[in-house]
């Protein structure tokens, strides 16, 4: 049975529908990327999966013995957190709060779990440092370690690379893939379709063209082609210094042409993957 099954979801708020007829499932070991433009309902979907918001209709079911509070959630960082006076260890330990329940203090087992999570993400060396003094990438690792304390099975990541520089972003993706290979299912909201196509096993595209399925099929799908191409073209334009307005016109005119570009892009991911492996082995 799937760990998470969503059936016929209708999402939205204040009576306004954002997404209709959304059905997908996440099996053990899957790496699902949820992509789509701003305002397409990605965050609403995430809140629904977490049971923080009720769907307008449809169901969200956990299976395979997964309980709702066993999801490791990595929210987007808030302003408050940036200058929060707390040590890394304190924050990671707070990931055990669901296990702890009404008991006032964390027990030895939970403290052990926190240490292991920090070990796993390579942040043990700054366990006693202050969170606000860390770099963006380090802070994300801390929050990921906290999420690991909350789950052994399923991670839910909300735009985990926002605001990180390219190198740190790549490291973050490696880290997530490593965790996924160790057997943790991953659901990730992402802006970055290319990274999604590169790392994920499944793609859920919400917005005008819906798509759910394995990543290989996504590359050939209408939504996938359009999206992957747009971004590729965007990047190319940006590098060439073409201004935004022209950019738009080009896009309208050049859709078939861009299809070829997408093919090239897909092939490219092979060798790029290889270098990624190298990065992963770094301590």
């Amino acid at each position: 049975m799937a760990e998470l099954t969503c059936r016929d979801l209708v999402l939205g708020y204040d009576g306004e529908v954002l997404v209709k007829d959304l059905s997908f499932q996440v099996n053990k070991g899957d790496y699902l990327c949820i992509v789509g433009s701003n305002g397409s309902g990605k965050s609403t979907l995430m809140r629904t999966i977490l049971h923080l918001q009720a769907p307008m209709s449809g169901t969200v079911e956990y299976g395979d013995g997964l309980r709702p509070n066993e999801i490791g959630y990595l929210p987007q960082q808030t302003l408050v957190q940036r200058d929060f006076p707390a040590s890394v260890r304190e924050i990671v330990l707070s990931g055990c709060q669901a296990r702890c329940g009404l008991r006032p203090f964390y027990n030895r087992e939970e403290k052990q779990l926190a240490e292991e999570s920090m070990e796993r993400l390579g942040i043990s060396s700054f366990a006693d440092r202050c969170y606000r003094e860390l770099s963006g990438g380090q802070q994300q690792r801390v929050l990921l370690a906290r999420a690991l304390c909350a789950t052994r099975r399923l991670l839910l990541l909300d735009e985990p690379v926002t605001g990180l520089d390219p190198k740190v972003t790549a490291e973050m993706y490696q880290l997530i893939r490593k965790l996924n290979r160790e057997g943790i299912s991953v659901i990730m909201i992402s802006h970055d379709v290319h990274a999604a196509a590169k790392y994920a096993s499944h793609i859920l595209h919400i917005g005008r063209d819906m798509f759910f399925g394995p990543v290989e099929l996504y590359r050939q799908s209408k939504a996938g082609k359009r999206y992957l191409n747009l971004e590729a073209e965007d990047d190319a334009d940006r590098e060439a210094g073409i201004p935004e307005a022209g950019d738009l016109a080009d896009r309208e005119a050049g859709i078939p042409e861009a299809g070829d570009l997408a093919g090239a892009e897909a092939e490219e991911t092979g060798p790029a993957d290889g270098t990624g492996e190298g990065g992963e082995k770094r301590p």
Partner: protein
Amino acid sequence: MTAKLALYFSYPFVRYALIVGVLIALCSSLLGVTLVLKRFSFIGDGLSHVAFGAMAIASVLNLTDSMVLVLPFTVVAAVLLLRVGQNAKIKGDAVIAMVSVGALAIGYLLMNIFSTSANISGDVCSTLFGSTSILTLSLFEVRLCVALSVVVVLVFVVFYNKIFAVTFDESFAMAVGTPVNRYNLMIAVIIAVIIVLAMNLVGSLLISALVIFPALSAMRVFKSFLSVTVCSAVLSVVCSVAGLLVSILAGTPVGSTIVAADILAFFLFAAAGKAAGRQ
């Protein structure tokens, strides 16, 4: 000077004042860190003004023990402010500003219209700035204060980890099933209790200082939540004892002297934090 202090401490009311001062300082500093970090600093201010309004009503009604009215009034206001702050048509800070000035104005108006004492401005001034009311505590008030302080400290210790979780990241806490709203409510109620307690010490205008300054000072220097909390508690107690002693010896108003001590400590800690950062 020691002889003078010894003489003062032979009076029970001075000893009461010291006990109550220490307890209030301790309680008020505990939640300060959470309030500052949650960007709730002004809730303390708003609530203290509500407490002032309630105090005015109590004095109009000629209640001998105003605490009976002020405490429930402030707790209800705390709950309402928190609720409104969450699903806001009017933004949280605007509501607080509205309630806070409104309560202040109505309180003063009531005291003026239905005045029972000959010296209204004296009464108002002492409610606002604390003046000497801490030196006129009855044994009952001291006991009540001790009991409430014990409850506040116990609740804080027992729920310390939850308070941390809710302060640091509400979304995560909600996602793993922690009843965030319940804990927020608890925090609001504790704050209301602390504020009513602290009115005796520094008066309703200066309570926020007691809540916020020690936390802000501690945050300049310390780097973990636990050390910040402990430091702000210790600092708050030290400042309020120092302030009390100075005010007794020099005859200055109790509340403002304590707050002055807190401000001084803040600048010392800020300087220390800067110095440590440079190394």
